[in-house]
């Protein structure tokens, strides 16, 4: 066998091995993407849940209750309000 054949054989081997490793890497990446997508979904759900909780805590009914009963506030009345008007 001459040198050229040997070089080609070596190249072929390298190619074959790198193909295997590339395929392996590809599969690993797919798994990683899957995992990330599951995580994304989870976080999305978490966000929806938090949005819902925040909404629950900021409901008009709750604010009114807290203002009246805990903070002893009362509704404003125009009689006790000073209105500022811009001069025209």
């Amino acid at each position, binding site marked *: 066998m001459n040198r050229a054949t040997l070089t080609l054989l070596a190249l072929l081997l390298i190619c074959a091995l790198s193909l295997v490793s590339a395929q392996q890497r*590809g*599969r690993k990446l*797919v*798994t990683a*993407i*899957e995992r990330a997508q599951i995580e994304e*979904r989870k976080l999305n*759900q978490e966000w*929806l*849940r938090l*949005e*819902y909780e925040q*909404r*629950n805590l*900021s*409901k*008009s*009914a709750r604010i*009114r209750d807290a*203002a009246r009963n805990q*903070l*002893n*506030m*009362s*509704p*404003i*009345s*125009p*009689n*006790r*309000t*000073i*209105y*500022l*008007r*811009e*001069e025209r």
Partner: protein
Amino acid sequence: MLFMLFVAFTALVVRALWIQGPGNAFYEAKAVKGTQRELEMSASRGKILDRNGQVIATSLEAKAVIAYNDTVPKDLSDEKIKQLANLLQMREVDVRKKLKDERNQVFLKRQVDPAIAQQIRKLEIPGIGLNNEFRRFYPEGEAMAHVVGFTNVEDHGQEGMELSRENDLAASTGKRRVVVDRLGRIVEDMGVLQLPQNGKDLKLSVDSKIQYIAYNALKDAVEKHRAKAAGAVVINVQTGEILALANWPSYNPNDRKILSGEQLRNRVMTDTFEPGSTIKPFTVALAMEKGQVNPNTVMTIGAKYLVGPKPITDTHLYPSLTVAEVIQKSSNIGTSKLAMNMPASEMWDLFTAVGFGQTPKVGFPGAVAGRLHPHQKWMPTDQARIAFGYGISTSLFQMARAYTIFARDGELVPVTIEHSPDYKAGVRVISAKTAIEMRSMLESVTEAGGTAIKAHAEGYRVGGKTGTAHKVAGKGYSTNKYLAYFTGIAPISAPRIVVAVMVDEPTANGYYGGQVAAPIFSTIVSETLRAMNVAPDSTVKNMVQRDDAIKPGSVAPIQRVVLTQ
């Protein structure tokens, strides 16, 4: 011997060829089954938001707990069953019954909280599986129930916007094929078979805050007057958006056990009633529009007016009234006298133009048309009574929408439940002059001498019309069952909202529209306009002109918060 070997080898070769060739499909399918899977790609139903982007309906992940009864061990320990029943908040007997079910696959419970599902998984009972699904949540609860409606356990809309906008809100799950390794990890994506489609979010015109104001005002009034039901609607007259639409009784859409019966009814949209005096402004406006009268024209009224077999009467005796006073005092005689001077067709045309007798196109399930007979069928006695609201029926929503012609200088505004905050062009029904004159007549109703002084809202000039109708009972009218209404506009100087209120069968502390419905109107108007940041147009104390010359400290502190101490 050699021959035998030859035959054996030939058989092997044939078999090998068979497997590689024509018989290949079977093995290929087997291999694919082992390594390829079809996965469901979940998609969630769209959210419903209010005009400020606040969530009023949202889907959160939940789990369905399923028992595969051929896998669940028959000798499952009592301890485990007890723990399972506790976690599911079910009785032990019920759990046992379901585990003994003939069918292989039984739902133990659906829409279980994910945290609880996790604990169930930790029990490690063979054959108990968890499926992904969604559960709908409604943070506003009772206050918004009739607007949003609700979905069933399969996530399909059943009432309200959930039903009418089902096509947009609904999600469709997708499917994809993947290759998995022996541990079940996905190693290759073979592609999507069907794209998942999330439902579209829906933004409504309703304002949670105003909705809450309206709902609460109704709730308080129903308690005070021991009424059967009540409804209210608030419309922004500039944009035609429904800002609030409240009903009492209501229900909590988060609680599946009570989603049936009377309280589901969206009375504002689906119940029709005889509007009584709230319709008078239309009859009077038509007479003014035709130039027959002006607000100062004096009319003879008297004790009764004979049209047909039964005389028309008023609650008080007025020898004479101006046209403006006919509205202010709500005179039946005055209104029917005006009506009898007009052709029936013209009255019918006006009533039809403002939407009576026609199904409103607003996207609510079950919205009704009400009843307005063709004018050819009107007898004179019908015409005289339709003029003050008997023999015609409308929903509260139709009435509120019709009043936009007075708020919008004669134009009827297209009304919508979807968020669309730009100014809408209306359809002209009466002239601006008539509408403006009618507005000041409506304002006089809420002033001294009017029928609805209690409609007066602090800080704002308001106008409107009361109505009290006997309820239809059997073939005639009930003598002691009433409907009380008030429909009005505020602020009068530059109208922003129309509010219509209805109270069904008030039994305590009065029953007239002016006593029962007007105070609700007053509460809703003053709180809504404040929430909308509308400056007061009536004289209030402490009005301060902005003037930079004022020395610091000479201006009292400004109170601009919703609640102050």
